[in-house]
């Protein structure tokens, strides 16, 4: 063990160290100003983000409970980056909040939970990580303390996530009963497609589907997204979803490879339902957060197609897409959080003639939406293209055609927002917003990400090379 053990778990250690620093500040006697706390935290997170890129050796710890390799490290770095952007964006919201430190302690705990989940080498560790990542989330979903909707969101979230955890646990225990092991590497050798195993597997998939809000397990999403503070909503929609997707890919590809045929059919069904229902519901939304909730459901449908590719390109395209999705979705949420923190307006109708008063923010929002819709030259185009190409590798062109048609529907509702911003008239448009420097930095990172991750092929090639390592 020795030093090895520190370096392999570097991502987790760093987070825990930051949490402890925050804890000491909290219990210390000195009163800190909110601004200085936020600056300190953002510097720490930046440091955390940068250090994540170094010393990424692979290895296994604690009797295969914890494993890491270059791909897992890259996935953690992606999540770190996303969290950093969200932290920058929530500056205007948290500036006047009474419980900044608690917010960050809870937020970083969930992130640590996700890291453990991604690194998990057996089902129990995985379950522990998942729980650590979802319970504190329910607490911060309630962080708009005076809003009843916020409490409602938190309550809905905790109940639904408890339910899905129940399903997962049931699946895990059945799996243990059927195979006699919970260690991933042994599990994959024990799988033979017996009915009990399939049943356990379906329960596991249902648990996953809850977390990534795939239809028909999506019902909690919209309400929670709408009620929670914007920072938490963006965290839920990109980081926690991204983490579960990473695990989903590696679990399906590595552990459940023997059941590939079963899960292909399940994914086919889930992705078609998720795309269609997510898209159709998104059309009718007026609240932007609800709107992005449904659009993110639809995006998951596309990601599932990439996963169903069951190939190196499939895994690479999913990781790549999550990275792009972080940039695009956070670009959109960044604008929404600025507007919402200043004016409290969150409806599409309020954004009419937004361009007249806020040129820069309008372009940022529009470009983010184009990226979500998959319009070149934004990165979203490349992300979707690779997802669908990976899916097409299975030869199921029906699925690809359905996806292509769904792209049109999704374009419609994204363009509806663009239309409101650029073309509609409004007597009381949102006033001119001055952007504080930290959120500006966040928006800049998102825009740079949207432009560069696509056109520069190195990112995709880098991710692809990581996948071939496993």
């Amino acid at each position, binding site marked *: 063990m020795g030093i090895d053990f520190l370096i392999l778990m570097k991502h987790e250690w760093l987070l825990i160290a930051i949490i402890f620093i925050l804890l000491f500040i909290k219990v210390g006697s000195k009163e800190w100003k909110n601004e200085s706390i936020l600056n300190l935290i953002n510097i720490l997170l930046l440091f955390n983000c940068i250090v994540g890129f170094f010393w990424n050796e692979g290895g296994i710890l604690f009797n295969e409970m914890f494993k890491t390799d270059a791909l897992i490290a890259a996935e953690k770095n992606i999540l770190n980056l996303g969290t950093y952007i969200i932290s920058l964006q929530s500056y205007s919201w948290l500036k006047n909040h009474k419980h900044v430190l608690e917010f960050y302690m809870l937020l970083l705990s969930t992130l640590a939970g996700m890291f453990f989940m991604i690194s998990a080498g057996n089902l129990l560790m995985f379950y522990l990580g998942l729980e650590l990542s979802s319970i504190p989330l329910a607490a911060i979903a309630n962080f708009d303390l005076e809003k009843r909707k916020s409490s409602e969101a938190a309550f809905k979230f905790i109940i639904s996530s408890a339910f899905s955890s129940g399903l997962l646990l049931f699946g895990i225990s059945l799996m243990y009963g059927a195979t006699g092991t919970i260690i991933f590497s042994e599990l994959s050798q024990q799988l033979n497609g017996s009915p009990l195993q399939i049943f356990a597997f379906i329960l596991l998939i249902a648990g996953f589907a809850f977390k990534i809000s795939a239809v028909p397990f999506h019902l909690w999403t919209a309400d929670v997204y709408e009620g929670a503070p914007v920072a938490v909503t963006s965290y839920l929609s990109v980081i926690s979803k991204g983490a579960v997707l990473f695990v989903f890919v590696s679990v399906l590809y590595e552990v459940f490879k023997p059941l590939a045929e079963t899960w292909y059919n399940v994914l086919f069904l889930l992705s078609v339902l998720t795309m269609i229902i997510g898209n159709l519901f998104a059309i009718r939304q007026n609240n932007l957060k609800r709107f992005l909730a449904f659009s993110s459901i639809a995006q998951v449908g596309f990601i599932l197609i990439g996963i169903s590719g069951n190939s190196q390109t499939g895994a690479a395209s999913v990781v790549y897409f999550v990275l792009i999705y972080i940039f695009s979705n956070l670009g959109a949420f960044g604008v929404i959080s600025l507007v919402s923190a200043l004016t409290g307006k969150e409806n599409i109708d309020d954004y009419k003639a937004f361009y007249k008063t806020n040129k820069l923010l309008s372009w940022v929002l529009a470009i983010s939406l184009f990226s979500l819709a998959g*319009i070149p030259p934004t990165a979203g185009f490349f992300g979707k293209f690779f997802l669908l190409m990976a899916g097409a590798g299975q030869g199921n062109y029906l699925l690809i055609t359905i996806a292509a048609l769904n*792209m049109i529907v999704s374009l*419609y509702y994204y*363009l509806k927002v*663009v239309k409101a911003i*650029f073309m509609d008239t409004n007597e009381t448009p949102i006033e001119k917003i001055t952007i504080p420097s930290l959120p500006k930095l966040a928006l800049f990172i998102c825009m740079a990400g949207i432009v560069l991750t696509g056109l520069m*092929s190195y990112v995709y*090639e880098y991710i*692809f090379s990581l996948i071939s390592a496993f």
Partner: protein
Amino acid sequence: MNLSFLILLPFVTAIAILFCNGLKQVRTVALIGTAAQFLLSIDLLFVYWKERTTGNNSPFLFDFNYTWFAPLNIHYHIGVDGISVAMILLTAFVVIAGVLVSWTQESMNKEFFFLLLFLSVGAYGYFISLDIFTLFFFLEVAVIPKFLLIGIWGSGKKEYSAMKLALMLMAGSGLVFVGLAGLYYGTNFNGERTFDLLQISQMHINILFQKIFFPFAFIGFGIFTALFPFHTWVPDGHSSAPTAASMFLAGISMKLGGYGCLRVATYLMPEGAHYYAWVIILLSTIAIIYGAFATMMQKDLKYINAYSSFSHCGFVLLGIGMLTQTSINGAVLQMVSHGLMTALFFAAIGMIYSRTHTRMVEQLGGLLKVIPFISTVFVIAGLCSLGLPGFSGFVAEMTVFMGAWQNPDQWYRLATILACASIVVTAVYILRAAGKTVMGPITDHHYNNLSDATWNEKLAAGILIIGIVAIGIAPFWLNQLITPGTEHIMEHVGKAITLK
């Protein structure tokens, strides 16, 4: 010659526009950029010509290949043949004319010129792509600027039209995408899958694959070029768009589709083309006749030109569907000719509308007396549209008909005859519209105070008219330019017959 400049130059111009202030700076930069691009395109023509006359017989010249996404074997591969050079010239002509007619674009001028130039980046990139991924990339680049141009600066029910256009074009590219995915997984070039146009053309794609994916690719591209029954975006989109955008839409954007049908669908899936030729011919004949009759009923000048574009683009598809050397030559000629002609038409309509504030035929009259230059331009565009000898329209349509007749199938000949007959209808609506607006008594006394074309409008019209007349009087140069390209395509199609 480095073809990447063709993409870089408009892109740099577009970025430069963002740093300008005020209409004067913006339009000067835009004009300088497009003029440079115009000269570059002319230069390309001469350089290309020189290469060919010195005996360079490779199908694509000046090609440049850079590995873009290695894992999927995606390349940034560009190069030109005669067809692409013709289309690039067309784009350069239309874009510079578009900038000139938008000379007094007051509201949000920076965004307007930025989007217009960004649109042209898509078109240039599309025409020089030799990798179907890059081709698809540039095809989609050109969708959103159109949406914004129509939705922000358009007239009438602009939001509806913009949305309709964006969604239908997106549907087109969605179908194209499925076609591309099918092609990609149908290829096997030394054990690797590929998007490269040349590599795919050298291998034989499974006939079953072609039968499945040809319709996807062809209909997908066809939507861009107003394939019946997917033409409904054309009238709304064209008539709501601001003048420069209409010119671009009808002049270039619709040609993207025709070019794709030829270059991707027919060239790469020749068996598919043979198999579905009758469908293409049926649909394009319906488009030609239905479009012509629909135009007769229109009262708005822009709708007249939009529906007639729908009808004229039918000739492009008819030429492609007939699959003879001459007919495909005719299809390409028609693309270039129609691009110039319709841009001129829309420019003239825009000039009339900006002065009289109406586009209704019945409210206009006697314009020749007050604005002679614009009226003449309008009449020239009309005459070119109805195929008067001496203008490009005659050459192109004639070639299509001759080529179509070479196809010995009885039913195809019937289609040719019907398509020919539509010219009479074209003459009716063009002469009626032109006669009513230009001749006769002045219908509104306000018209007496109208001022004739300004220098920029004269220049724009002049550039387009030069193009039209150059093709009309001396069609052989354009024909010689495109023939090696079309012969190369026909070679593949010919091989496909022997395989049957």
